[in-house]
């Protein structure tokens, strides 16, 4: 297979972005002008029923211009980077701003700063084309075929040029690589799943994760049905990440100030087990840290929950200013850790458990009640009964009805943080955990 994608496309460079943004600034008549860039090139190879079903490659560059006259602001975007189109985009943004009502929450662009330089542009990922993706897909499919199982999954690689600039001298540019692999193995009615995401496509551990998904699928055959109710649980990292993602999304500071947050009045108070700490760790090599945010703020290491105590909220710039918060923390690289002696692996958690439900992953988690962060969702692709230190049987999938603010009040046991990603969450580092009580409200048919 010959590949043209190794040479294509030529993504927008730092100098080109500077040229484009300067072009906008030169022609802008607004009091404040900001320009942002997202030039994204991604390839995805998708497989199901042990064969390739989709093989795609797409590049989409978009330039966004935001201008303000005093407190009247407007935003326009274009995917056409020719001078005429950029001029038109600026004109559209100015036209919007001139007729927009003054926004009492408008703030000028952030002051210029030095953005942290992070190792986000992994050349092996950027260079990976359909051949590399096909190689990984075939590896997963091959293992499954040998076991007479069905594989469905995806291998993707992407590179994104991201830029932010303002007419006050603010300028940032970063190239971000992203490689992903996920696999669902079907063994009749049973399924096993595994997934990975990394800046480096060489760190996806395709073979290791494929064998893990196969083992889960084979072990999941002939599931028995247990009644709904409260059970002790062992949650694997993906399941923990699913619950914590919703907790993180609910940390909005404006909702907090307005009284419409599940955390209202809890800043500075203990909200979860006092041994738990949630950090932003953008320099961790296994997380997807970034140098800057889309608002033009530096991404910085920070502590959000310190030994169970809520320390930070997710601030927009206006609310931060109103609340006297000067350095706005970011949380794009979440790392959750637990003090105390951790166990080595999920297997060790199982060995130390008298009776529990082991959950590999949750699916379709949605809020039920934003007041107490009550969530619902389904177990998926690996749910088992553990008794006396061993997996004794697969069980039919449960629907849960729980709040992470309740179930993470006390952890029975835990591992060190591990990589976790699933189809609905950003990558995190979280421990696998054993929890004493978890409410499953109903059971499904498989």
């Amino acid at each position, binding site marked *: 297979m010959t590949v*043209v994608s190794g040479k294509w496309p030529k993504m927008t460079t730092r100098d080109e972005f500077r040229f484009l943004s300067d072009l906008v600034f030169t022609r802008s008549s607004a009091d404040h002008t900001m320009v942002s860039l997202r030039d994204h090139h991604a390839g995805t190879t998708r497989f199901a029923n042990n*064969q390739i079903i989709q093989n795609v*490659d797409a590049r989409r560059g978009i330039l966004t211009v935001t201008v303000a006259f005093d407190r009247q602001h407007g935003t326009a975007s274009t995917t056409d980077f020719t001078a005429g189109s950029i001029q038109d985009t600026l004109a559209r943004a100015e036209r919007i701003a001139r007729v927009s009502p003054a926004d009492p929450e408008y703030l000028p662009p952030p002051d210029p700063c030095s953005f942290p330089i992070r190792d986000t542009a992994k050349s092996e990922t950027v260079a990976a084309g359909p051949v590399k993706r096909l190689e990984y897909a075939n590896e997963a499919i091959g293992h499954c075929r040998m076991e007479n199982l069905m594989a*469905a999954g995806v291998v993707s690689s992407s590179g994104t040029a991201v830029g932010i600039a303002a007419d006050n001298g603010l300028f940032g540019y970063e190239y971000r690589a992203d490689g992903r692999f996920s*696999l669902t193995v079907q063994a009749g009615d049973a399924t096993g799943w595994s997934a990975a995401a990394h800046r480096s496509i060489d760190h996806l551990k395709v073979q290791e994760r494929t064998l893990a998904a196969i083992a889960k699928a084979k072990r999941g055959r002939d599931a028995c049905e247990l009644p709904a109710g409260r059970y002790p649980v062992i949650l694997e990292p993906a399941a923990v990440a699913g619950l914590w993602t919703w907790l993180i999304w609910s940390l909005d500071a404006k909702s907090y100030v*307005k009284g419409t947050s599940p955390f209202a009045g809890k800043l500075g108070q203990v909200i979860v087990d006092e041994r738990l700490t949630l950090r932003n760790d953008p320099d961790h090599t296994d997380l997807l840290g970034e140098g800057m945010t889309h608002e033009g703020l530096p991404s910085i290491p920070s502590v959000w929950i310190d030994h169970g105590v809520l320390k930070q909220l997710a601030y927009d710039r206006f609310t931060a200013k109103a609340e006297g918060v000067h350095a706005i923390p970011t949380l794009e690289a979440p790392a959750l850790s637990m003090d105390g002696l951790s166990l080595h692996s999920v297997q060790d958690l199982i060995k130390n458990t008298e009776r529990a439900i082991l959950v590999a992953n949750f699916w*379709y988690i949605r809020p*039920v009640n934003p007041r107490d962060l009550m969530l619902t969702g*389904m177990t998926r692709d690996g749910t088992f009964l553990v008794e006396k230190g061993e997996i004794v049987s697969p069980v039919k999938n449960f629907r849960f009805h729980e709040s992470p603010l309740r179930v993470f009040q006390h952890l029975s046991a835990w591992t060190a943080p591990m990589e976790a990603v699933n189809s609905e969450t950003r990558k995190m580092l979280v421990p696998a955990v054993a929890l004493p009580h978890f409410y499953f409200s109903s059971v499904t048919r498989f």
Partner: protein
Amino acid sequence: MSTPTWDEFAELALKRITVSGAEYGDMRIQDSHTEHMEGEDRRIASIRDVRDIGFGVRVLYHGAWGFAASSILSLEEVPRIADLAVEIARGSASVALEKVRLAPEPVHRDRIVTPYRIDPFSVPLEKKADLLLNTMETLHRQPGIARSNASLWVRRDKKLFVSTEGSHLEFDLLAGQGDCTATALYDSRFASRSFNTPHLRKGYEVIEEADFLREASRVADQAVEKVKAPAVDAGQYDLVLDPEHLSLTIHESCGHPSELDRALGYEANYAGTSFLTTEKRGNFRYGSRYVNLVADNTEPETLAATGFDDDGVQCQRWDIVRDGIFVGYCTNREVAPKIGESRSRGSNRADGWENIPIVRIANIGLEPGSATVEQLIADVKRGIYIEGHGSYSIDQRRYNFQFGGDAFWLIENGRRTHMLRDVIYHGITPEFWNSCDGVADRSFRRRYGFITCGKGQPGQSGWMTHAASPARFRRVQVIRGEGS
């Protein structure tokens, strides 16, 4: 040199595909214009105007697909992308076991234009901003309202579809929608209530035909009543569900399981599969005799009524569930032959130019019955009337679901009484639809659209409309949506 026309770009791409030896290829060029205005707490928080232009080339080579796309529409880029699509398809073909065979479709040459009375992009932004500001002011007039939101969204898609089979389809499509939400605070609790116009393929009249100020006043009153309402007691209730609420129930519990690609395992790694497996077609009792679910991509103003899909297949109307029996799937040209169907149902759609089309839910609606809403309620001893969307979740085969809603009223002895809060119901899809024992008549029918239906890897958003008249369901399990 003048800028080439879209037809000239298309000819360039099709020539490259044809000489490559591929058995099929198509190209979509799309220019999407979106205007989105958002209001929050009495202010216009953002107005965004997005122009998104690009093209995608799809190639079927020796029974395997390749697809490439770019936002650079130029004489250099078009042949490069066409060649890349061919190369990717060749790579896929080298490992293909089962070759893709497309269901035949006549060659079409047509132009589809959304009829409209008011061009949504001609309406001054000041007028749109005034509408949202006045709407939010109306929401805040009700004491107890702590927060307000309002938004307007309009979109125009100009698109060209051409295929190596000779189809040539031009589209100029509009869509629009508006909404507002009031959030009430009371006794450390908060609750929201919303008004949504449907997403429809119309001009700005979709906004002007709605009385935002009257609706804002209503939902503000109801938000305050809701936050002060008693929480529901868990137990079995009869439910009467309004059309907006049912649109989501239909989408999740009938729409997705009726996508044939899911039933065949294509989505096993992400969106999931389907309990409506192929051997059930024609003999599985999905619902009661009152349940007739019809896919209709020909109904004017609905989101999936685009004349043709992204396979170039003409939009159609067909049965999904007839007299309670599951009888039909949503299909495309690739999967239709796998169940012995000679023609695709025309449900293959891509999210913009940069994505490959995949099977999508059609405009599936619940056919009207013969009752009035009053008659449905009159025959309920202990029940709940539910309006709008709330919490929702369903398993990956679409059996076990759980829904909330936006507003709930207790029904006692045939009368709708006071509001309730924190109502959540759950069930198993075929059991739920088999408990349906009444659907209101056509005069109560309403349509609601979705533009954020997630599916596929990379993720794509799908658009479709679900119509329904209110319907009644017996002995459904209800729980309280808060922690104990």
